[in-house]
């Protein structure tokens, strides 16, 4: 079940109606938990056992970590149990075949041929997301940032909360669990903001991303068959598709949670207007980048050591972040490209500070530089997306030959009109970033808003492509 399906609207209407009819908070949480399990079970009920197992393990680990008088060794042991179970499940379901294939390749390269073993493993949807959520619970308790929950219902609701269960945002236990302590009040909800946000997310996912999907699929299936200009269309299409797909999902998730009275963290903040790659990672998939920073980069030492130590940590964090997205070397390269760019960006910042004309530029130079920075960052992000999308290095290099060198042996063409679509979308996006629409929507009379919403929904449906395209981030 995905948010743009008709059955989800029915599902959510029932969830919403019953939820606000129930009075006791514990009943509401039980209802949400039941619905969350049903939501996940609609995809594959067998993997519910994984979520429930992970919840139980972290519940027990949390209680033991919170007990007074535990020795540091015992606490470490409990933490290792949580890490072992959660990361073990992730490793088995997501990375078993990747590591086995890589080992076979490595031994073959060393002249020690091995038989390849491929496990017939189905990747449980959303495993990367809920694993990180449960880990944040144990890690925060271990670090003393969070008190363990005695209520199993609370913890289970946090882990399985359906709006963000399968594709994030990755919610921290310390942000979400306190919200479960008291019953939410309907009168405290900004219904208009939530409804508008849902429609926006729907537009991004169903009207933009889903319509670009077949174009992207067609191009990346055989990039060498297309000319160089089509290479640009293909890459820009994917760049737009992945943003609209993922941020659209996040918007709808935040909106659904908001209508039930819960706040989820912001996940995107106009990432393609970032002025540097460091800025990009403050704006793109914010819940993941902050998770990686807090639970990986800083524990690795962050920037507390020397320059090389910092760079090692940056690269390691980004490479592992790449691997989190998918079990393939192309994702590793994607992470490494971002890691490399972060390092270069740090060096450049230091260099720029040392040059007076760059450190204190004139107005015109400042404007020119910020435009150039945005363009360069965007270009680099597009190049990195090529590795993210391509199913092999051969395909990625073929795409880059068109996108970077403007060379391609192909003659087929994608629709040039798509440049116009990108331009319109970019303008709308820019105007949005300048908050052009916000006040108009917020100050509209209620009845006018209601009528406008009905018209907008009907219009959006005419732009929805026929057939479903699952969310890209479901696979991660």
């Amino acid at each position, binding site marked *: 079940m995905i948010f743009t399906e*008709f059955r989800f609207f029915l599902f959510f209407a029932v969830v919403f109606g019953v939820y606000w009819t129930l009075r006791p908070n514990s009943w509401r949480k039980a209802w949400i938990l039941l619905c969350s399990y049903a939501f996940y079970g609609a995809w594959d009920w067998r993997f519910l056992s994984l979520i429930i197992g992970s919840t139980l393990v972290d519940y027990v680990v949390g209680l033991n970590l919170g007990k007074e008088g535990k020795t540091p060794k015992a606490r470490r042991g409990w933490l290792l149990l949580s890490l072992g179970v959660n990361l073990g499940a992730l490793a088995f379901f997501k990375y078993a075949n990747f590591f086995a294939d890589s080992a076979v390749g490595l031994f073959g390269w060393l002249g020690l041929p091995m038989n390849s073993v491929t496990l017939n493993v189905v990747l449980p949807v959303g495993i990367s997301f809920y694993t990180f959520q449960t880990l944040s619970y144990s890690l925060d308790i271990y670090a003393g940032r969070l008190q363990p929950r005695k209520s199993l219902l609370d913890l289970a609701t946090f882990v399985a909360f359906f709006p963000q269960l399968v594709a994030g945002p990755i919610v921290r236990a310390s942000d979400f669990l306190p919200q479960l302590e008291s019953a939410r*009040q*309907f*009168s*405290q*909800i*900004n219904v208009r*903001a*939530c409804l*508008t*946000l849902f*429609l*926006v*997310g729907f*537009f991004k996912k169903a009207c933009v991303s889903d319509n670009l999907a*077949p*174009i992207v699929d*067609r191009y990346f*299936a055989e990039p060498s068959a297309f000319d160089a200009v089509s290479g640009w269309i293909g890459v820009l299409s994917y760049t737009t598709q992945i943003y609209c797909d993922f*941020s659209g999902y996040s*918007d709808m998730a*935040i909106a659904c949670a*908001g209508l039930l*009275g819960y*706040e989820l*963290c*912001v996940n*995107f903040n106009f990432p393609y207007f970032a002025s540097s790659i460091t800025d990009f990672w403050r704006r793109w998939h914010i819940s993941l980048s902050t998770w990686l920073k807090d639970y990986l980069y800083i524990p690795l030492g962050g920037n507390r050591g020397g320059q090389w130590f910092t760079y090692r940590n940056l690269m390691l964090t980004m490479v592992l972040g790449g691997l989190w997205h998918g079990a393939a070397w192309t994702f590793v390269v994607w992470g490494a490209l971002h890691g490399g760019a972060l390092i270069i960006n740090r060096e450049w910042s230091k260099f720029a500070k040392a040059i007076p004309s760059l450190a204190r530029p004139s107005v015109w130079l400042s404007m020119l530089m910020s435009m150039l920075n945005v363009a360069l960052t965007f270009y680099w992000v597009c190049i990195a997306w090529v590795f993210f999308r391509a199913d092999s290095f051969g395909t990625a290099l073929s795409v880059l030959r068109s996108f970077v060198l403007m060379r391609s042996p192909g003659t087929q063409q994608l*629709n040039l009109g798509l440049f116009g679509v990108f331009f319109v*979308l970019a303008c*709308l*996006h820019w*105007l*949005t*970033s300048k*908050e052009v*629409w*916000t006040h*108009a*929507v*917020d100050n509209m009379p209620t*009845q006018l808003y*209601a*009528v406008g*919403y*009905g*018209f*907008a*929904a*009907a*219009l*959006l*449906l*005419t*732009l*929805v*492509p*026929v*057939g*479903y395209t699952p969310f890209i981030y479901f696979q991660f």
Partner: protein
Amino acid sequence: MFILISDVLKPVAAHPRRTDEQRKRRTGRLIPRYVRSCLASVVAFIVATVILGQIIPSPTIPSNVVFIGPKHDYYQAHKNDYDTLFFGSSRVYNHVIPDVFDSASERAGIAVDSYNFGVPALRALDSIVLLEDVLSDPPENLKWVFFETTLDKGYEPIQNARTHRSMYWHTWENTGFAARYILSSEASASAKAMLIASHLLPTLYRQMNVGRLFSQVLPSEFSAQERAVTKIFTRNEGYFPLTDKSSPKRQHFLANQADYEAAVARLAEEPNADITQARLPENKRMLLAKATQAIRDAGAKPIFIEPPSLSPEHDFRIAEQQGDIETLLSYRDPKRFPQLYEPLQRFDSEHLTERASQEFSQLLAKDFVQAVQP
């Protein structure tokens, strides 16, 4: 287009709390206000869908319906070249070779030009809709129309609901016909409810104009595989040969040949079954009458076909016996047509190989000439 505002609204949505004062003011008048707003939204939505449906109406057969669209486009451009049309499921689409059929008919004494309008996975209801839509503007010299279908329960797979294939024909009128077909069947009340419900979702999607504007501005592209298939059947006047030996159905057939042979043996006994007392359900009679009427209205003679399948149903034979259909060419008899049931002649349990399709087309032509010649 005020809609790319999510990033701006996020701070609002992420902090949806109101102050206590605001909350107090709103309490009490909240529910009636929301009910009113919801109603206003729903009414606006319905009005907008009706208006949009008028502004951007759906073509009767849109070009982007896989198989059907390209076949119809080709037919529209060449329809006066043909005097014979074949309608049916994959058992027409993959079995009737117009070239072979035309030359065999000519050799037997009647010169025809035929076009294969068979479409894979066509069911009873959509086959009759397609037949009526195509024949509403028939070729000038149309003489014969062959019709094959499985007279099924009228189920529409729910997973297909949001596809062009399912949406395009779910007009109110056709959905009404589907409902009548199901209601006059012999299914239980609960089964009828389920079957009718299966048609409501595509009807709803169609009435809500899902994808309508986008399809007209930038028509959906077929996949590479669909484009390749379209090229082949367009070249063969609608016929598509089954040659992909790696297909799962083919592999399944090869792995379970003994089951197939047992099914053939069972079927071989069935044509002798006594059907003299059997009665065709009202809904099936209605469907066959509708097909016959549509063909006659187009100025042609209807010829019903029962292809060499393993289906256990005797519907067409009963219909012929009851006088609901006039001409039936049946090949559902392994004793009379052993050459069409031999495992070597089958691509899978339901379909013939290309070579067997040639034999079948010749046989059909011969029987056709015998049946229509005075």
